[in-house]
């Protein structure tokens, strides 16, 4: 083995630099080569910062990216001729806002716009001020600006949750207020009809002072007392309705639209610990049941449908087995924010208990660092073990909404976050903020994005509301190039001879690790003079999987502050982490239906069977011609219906009968003899009892029937007087 390779292999195997040809990377400000374009995020237009829209929930998107807001405003104001100037100024303002936000300035979009406009370069320019004024007027929304930092996940989730709570509260309040009004109306009507309500004093009070001297309320009262209404409320109903109104008015779950829970008159639902949320839930459960019950009874009362003999018993043990999920869904959800970094194993277990109890808890677990010290000790770091366990045991439950995502991807997941908040059941949001504090100069956004690219913290959603199986519930597609082990991108560069080139580069777990100070010892820079052909890209090296003394050494492409390329070799520890990460990613892929081993095995089997089938049919005779299909059922039925013997015409004209379906309910025949003629349940005439009258009556009815559908038939009693004449008169109606 040549000397250069020897030193590299030694480093790879031991992590020790034995020759002076290798250099520690600490202090070199290197970052993965694929990050070359992301040196200054304030110059890029991307998802962040976000605008958390004020008054969200009124039919507009509750969160938008700053770029989208600016673009929206621009679309409204840009006119031919000025498009260039307005666009240029708007983009400059947008960049200024990014710079301010990156420097830690907080505030609303409008306040930051002001601050950006006061930057020196802007002040003197009249046209610039014009652009600003027009842009401002065209902004469709305002709201807090948040960058992708440590606090962002919690702020975003709380913002979306509040919008959702407001929607729920508005709907529930409308219901409650409507019921209170209806019930109060019933009580009021009852009062008006009561003795007290008809007293002179209350009549006078109802009238108002203006013209009261013009009326004699005593006389009015005497009159009204005489006309006592028959039906007043029963005592029990009056008591029940009063109780309902009291319960509905005293509820503390839903503040009116112009109020918040801040003043303590209404319950608050955001908590910093799972235990706190659980205690509050337990304590409020009885009032929640009372309110749900009161709403159900009030609804019946308002509809006048409450029947004591039926409903008293039902409501006596209402919801002893818990509320109907549809009713429970009307109530607020609890937002629980947990710091995953300080969560002990016991905390995790308690959290799972709450999630599995099916309570309306929306839990955000924030993790700032996914390279945790291994429980086995020895200074080893393991990859996000706790959050991974939490997410996978939650998914195993089957009825918990689970969303995992690094913060950089949260904006793209905003609708899925809303779906989780809306989900009728517990939801777990596991988020990696990227604010590790160990990544040197990399902003949290880039660390989070690197975790996503490197499969270190994949983004996925498990939504039980979407269907009954994993295929419909599990979503993995937001990970870059999810069908591959590692996403691959093209890196453009220029060599010493200023020749442009491009290389396909995979972004692997090793690229993520190299950003972390604690892993610095696993890497060593190789000076350009010592570059050799045994240095192979990490991805290729990971593919070999060979242990023992290798022929090659894995190496990373990195760039420094001036975007010059460097090569860095990697030790075995980092490679081992990368392999484990790939294994975890592959099992996620299987869950997501990517390279699913069961499916692939089945496919192979089926293909074999199909080929076998083909071979056999190829030697057999051609298939027989398809038979003509039977006529559709409805056609056959219609044909049968028209062929039905027409009842009336088939009848023997000997017997009296009426073509009942044609009867116009005109009462003529009934007026002649209501025993002989009767109405059926559709109030159409038929011959109820032919013996209940005379033949004369039959004939007279036939003559009187304007639609001529009474057929008198032949006389039954040969002794009836005047038969001869009657038979002649009956002739036209036979």
């Amino acid at each position, binding site marked *: 083995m040549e000397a250069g390779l020897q030193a590299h292999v030694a480093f790879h195997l031991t992590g020790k630099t034995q020759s002076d040809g290798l250099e520690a990377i600490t202090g070199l400000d290197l970052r993965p080569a694929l990050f070359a374009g992301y040196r200054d995020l304030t110059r890029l237009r991307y998802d962040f910062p976000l605008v958390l829209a004020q008054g969200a929930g009124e039919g507009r998107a509750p969160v938008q990216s700053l770029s989208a807001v600016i673009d929206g405003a621009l679309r409204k104001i840009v006119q031919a001729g000025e498009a260039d100037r307005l666009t240029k100024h708007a983009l400059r303002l947008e960049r200024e806002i990014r710079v301010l936000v990156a420097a830690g300035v907080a505030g609303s979009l409008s306040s930051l716009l002001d601050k950006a406009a006061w930057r020196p370069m802007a002040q003197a320019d009249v046209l610039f001020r014009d652009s600003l004024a027009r842009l401002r007027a065209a902004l469709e929304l305002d709201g807090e600006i948040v960058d992708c930092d440590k606090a962002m996940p919690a702020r975003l989730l709380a913002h979306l949750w509040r919008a959702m709570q407001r929607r729920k509260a508005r709907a529930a309040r409308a219901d409650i207020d409507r019921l209170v009004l209806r019930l109060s109306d019933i009580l009021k009507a009852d009062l008006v009809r009561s003795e007290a309500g008809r007293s002179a004093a209350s009549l006078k009070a109802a009238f108002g002072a203006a013209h009261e001297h013009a009326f004699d309320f005593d006389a009015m009262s005497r009159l009204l007392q005489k006309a006592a209404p028959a039906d007043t409320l029963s005592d029990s109903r009056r008591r029940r309705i009063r109780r309902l109104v009291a319960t509905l008015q005293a509820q503390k779950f839903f503040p009116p639209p112009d109020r918040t829970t801040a003043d303590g008159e209404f319950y608050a639902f955001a908590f910093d610990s799972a235990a706190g949320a659980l205690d509050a839930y337990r304590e409020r459960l009885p009032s929640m049941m009372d309110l749900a019950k009161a709403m*159900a009874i009030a609804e019946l009362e308002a*509809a006048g449908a409450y029947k004591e003999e*039926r409903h008293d018993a039902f409501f006596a043990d209402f919801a002893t087995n818990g509320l109907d999920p549809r009713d429970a869904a009307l109530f607020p959800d609890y937002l629980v924010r947990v710091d995953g970094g300080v969560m002990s194993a016991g905390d995790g277990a308690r959290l799972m208990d709450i999630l599995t109890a099916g309570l309306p808890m929306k839990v955000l677990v924030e993790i700032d660092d996914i390279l945790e010290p291994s429980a086995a000790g020895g200074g080893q770091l393991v990859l996000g073990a706790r959050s991974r366990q939490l997410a996978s045991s939650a998914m195993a439950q089957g009825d918990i909404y689970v969303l995992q995502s690094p913060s950089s991807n949260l904006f793209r997941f905003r609708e899925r976050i809303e779906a989780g908040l809306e989900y009728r059941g517990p939801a777990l949001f596991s988020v990696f903020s990227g604010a590790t504090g160990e990544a040197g100069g990399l902003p949290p956004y880039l660390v989070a994005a690197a975790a996503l690219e490197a499969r270190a913290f994949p983004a996925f959603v498990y939504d039980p509301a979407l269907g009954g199986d994993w295929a419909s519930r599990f979503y993995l597609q937001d990970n870059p190039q999810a069908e591959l082990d590692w996403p691959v991108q093209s890196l453009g560069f220029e060599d010493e001879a200023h020749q442009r080139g491009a290389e396909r580069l995979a972004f692997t777990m090793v690229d993520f690790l190299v950003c972390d100070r604690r892993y610095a010892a696993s890497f060593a820079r190789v000076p350009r003079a010592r570059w050799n052909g045994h240095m192979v890209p990490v991805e290729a090296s990971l593919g070999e999987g060979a242990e023992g003394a290798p022929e090659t050494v894995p190496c990373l492409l990195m760039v420094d502050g001036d975007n010059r390329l460097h090569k860095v070799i990697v030790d075995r520890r980092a490679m081992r982490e990368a392999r484990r990460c790939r294994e975890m990613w592959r099992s996620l892929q299987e869950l997501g239906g990517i390279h699913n081993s069961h499916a692939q095995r089945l496919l192979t089997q089926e293909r074999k069977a199909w080929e076998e089938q083909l071979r056999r049919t190829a030697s057999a005779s051609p298939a027989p011609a398809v038979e003509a299909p039977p006529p559709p059922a409805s056609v056959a039925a219609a044909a049968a219906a*028209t062929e039905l013997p027409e009842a009336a015409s088939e009848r023997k004209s000997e017997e009296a009968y009426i073509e009942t379906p044609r009867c116009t309910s005109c009462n003529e025949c009934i*007026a002649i003899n209501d025993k002989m003629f009767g109405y059926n349940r559709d109030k159409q005439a038929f011959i109820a009892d032919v013996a209940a009258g005379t033949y004369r009556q039959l004939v007279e009815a036939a003559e009187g029937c304007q639609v001529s559908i009474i057929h008198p038939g032949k006389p039954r009693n040969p002794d009836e007087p005047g038969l001869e004449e009657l038979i002649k008169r009956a002739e036209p109606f036979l």
Partner: protein
Amino acid sequence: MTSAATECLLRMYDEHHELEDYQSGVPRWCTGCGDNAILAAVQRLCRDEDLRPEKTVFVSGIGCSSRFPHYMKTYGFHGIHGRALPVAEGIKMARPDLNVFVNTGDGDCCSIGAAHWIHAIRYNMNMTVMLHDNQIYGLTKMQASPTSPKGLKSNTTPRGAYLEALNPLTVTLGVQNVSFVAQAVDWIPEVMYDIISAAFHHKGLSFVRIVQRCPEWLPKLLEPWLHDPEKVLLLEHEDAIRISPSLAQVYKNRRRHDPSDLDRARETASGFDPIPVGILYRNPRVPCYEELRTAAGLRSTERIRKGLEAEFDKFTVWPQQAAEGAPAE
């Protein structure tokens, strides 16, 4: 939004009604009067749809036909001559949860109430309007109405009516926002029932003109149509009325008519011999006024009082200010 428990309880104990549950009193109409047939069909509809009597209201004006609400054991409003429609509109606006029916006569609707009629069509509020058209003022003992045929001798036209009769169908079909127009004849109850039922299910104002016999004053007028099935043109369509096989044996004069075709509807509606019977026009997409104009928020006593006060304040003259010569505002 109803709670799940309530919904389930209401369904569990759904009340079922018989036709008799909707009957009230003995109609004072003449024996043989076509109004009886309309009443029977409507009571049948209420039973078949299981309409809750306390959620149903019949509104009318003045006339024989307008006595209709008295014979329904539901809510009713026997109004003033020509004003059935505005009253019904007020009810629908205040209580959109009610089933609103209107029974009006040819005098009530097409003469004194004509202005309301036109605007009610345009407002297209969800209700079922039945025009009992006997082509005469029945209650006041035989005066010509706008729909009386030319030449009809009556107490007000002893030498015969001078003018061509007004056609309520073509008038209605000419108004903007018309959404449902049909014609029934009281002597084919089966089809009349189907039409009233379709009208009830239509969302919007459904206008059904029912050619109704008045044997008291015009015993002969409709005889030819009554006795010759060829003088009735049944309109059938898979989206409208289907004619039963037994009826098809009696009424051979039938035509397929697509109720979405407004031009064809107008053309068909203008004939009276043979008289078209069926759904002429239906457009479920016309917006209903009560939905365009639902007031947000609850109509609490408090809110109503505030609204009234604000209105009255516009016209209030405050004695103090008036004395000082200050403007009233």
